[in-house]
């Protein structure tokens, strides 16, 4: 146990400080190259640098390489390869508008290294009821899991600071659950995701200085999905992610097809005169988590963000309860 402490501290420090120190120069470079987008929720014409995925992937890769130096686990290689592939897929989408099916299909391919490296256990663990062996089905689950987690995080990246703040809560929850389940090595492998998200949140929180872009959101989501698989905590990971899952579920059940957000014509949310957010009555617009939160009354961007964080805390508590329930068998 003691021998795990030093790699943990080193990797967490590297994860945090690589992102913390590389993001400001990245913002300068992106602004200089005019890689900026308008912040749609600001009254003034505010342009924000994008994509921040570059500093996020640097933090993750640097910290995981250090961990690989200590542990030489195939699971760490799977994290590095799949997460880097997800970043590249997101980066292509940041630079060039791709079709609705591009990201899910490409992310499914990005999941293949997990299978080839054998970094998974085909038993699916459920709380109270135990494990179920599903060797063939589990391969399908791996292929589906990375596109789902990637696009789920991407779909919640709608307001300043939400995607990174959401990841801080969800990923630390997942790490706590892995410690509860005494899966210490994978818990340590998962910690850099929380520290990278925390460092990025400093620049992403309202008012954002940088947006993660698809490259950042897919990097977050893909790494989260890989940790769920290699840690054997798929169900717990899904529970910690529930607010984002609800967002995707509401979106898909109202639109009834896989489609890029930018292809949607109807506007789910608009601004009041004092630039608060309010839900529209547009029947062609998709139902989203933000739209539901705003259904009662208009709120500021900050208030909506904090409501999402409170929901994420709640699902995090449910995930931790679930982790404790894993040890109980009916």
């Amino acid at each position, binding site marked *: 146990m003691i021998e795990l402490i030093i790699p943990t501290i080193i990797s967490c420090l590297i994860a945090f400080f690589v992102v913390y120190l590389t993001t400001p120069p990245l913002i300068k470079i992106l602004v200089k190259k005019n890689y900026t987008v308008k912040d749609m929720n600001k009254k003034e014409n505010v342009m924000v640098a994008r994509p921040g995925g570059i500093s996020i992937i640097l933090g993750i890769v640097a910290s995981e390489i250090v961990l690989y130096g200590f542990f030489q686990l195939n699971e760490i290689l799977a994290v590095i390869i799949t997460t880097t592939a997800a970043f590249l897929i997101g980066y292509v989408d940041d630079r060039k508008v791709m079709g609705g099916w591009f990201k899910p299909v490409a992310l499914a391919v990005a999941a293949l290294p997990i299978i080839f490296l054998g970094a998974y256990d085909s038993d699916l663990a459920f709380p109270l009821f135990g494990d*179920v062996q*599903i060797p*063939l089905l589990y391969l399908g689950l791996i292929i589906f899991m990375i596109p789902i987690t990637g696009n789920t995080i991407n779909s919640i990246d709608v307001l300043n600071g939400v995607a990174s703040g959401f990841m801080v809560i969800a990923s630390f929850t997942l790490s706590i659950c892995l410690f509860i389940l005494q899966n210490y090595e994978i818990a340590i492998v998962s910690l850099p995701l929380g520290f990278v998200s925390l460092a990025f949140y400093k620049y992403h929180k309202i008012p954002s200085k940088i947006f993660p872009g698809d490259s950042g959101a897919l990097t977050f989501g893909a790494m989260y999905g890989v940790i769920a698989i290699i840690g054997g905590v798929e169900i717990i990971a899904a529970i910690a992610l529930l*607010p984002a899952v*609800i967002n995707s579920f509401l979106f898909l059940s109202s639109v009834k097809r896989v489609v890029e957000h930018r292809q949607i014509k109807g506007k789910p949310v608009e601004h009041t005169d004092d630039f608060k957010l309010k839900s529209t009555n547009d029947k062609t*617009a998709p139902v989203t988590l933000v739209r539901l939160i705003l259904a*009662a009354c208009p709120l500021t961007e900050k208030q909506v963000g904090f409501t999402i964080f409170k929901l994420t805390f709640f699902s995090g508590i449910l995930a931790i309860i679930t982790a404790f*329930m894993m040890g109980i068998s009916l």
Partner: protein
Amino acid sequence: MKSGLYGFLFAMWVLILLGGGIMVVLLGPFSIQQFGDFHWAIASGIKVIVALVLVVIWILILSKLKNYIFKKELNF
């Protein structure tokens, strides 16, 4: 509204736990022996189909639940 969202989150959690239980009870002990070397692949294929049916049922229940909890809010 916010209590509705927390309620929906809690309902999803309960549905995940129940769905997991059904998966373990139905799929866990399931095996086929009479197809020689292919029993593993056939059993896995049947498990895939049962799991997909369970997922579809799970989504349908969730959809009904969503309409029930958010019937006022979804009246856009």
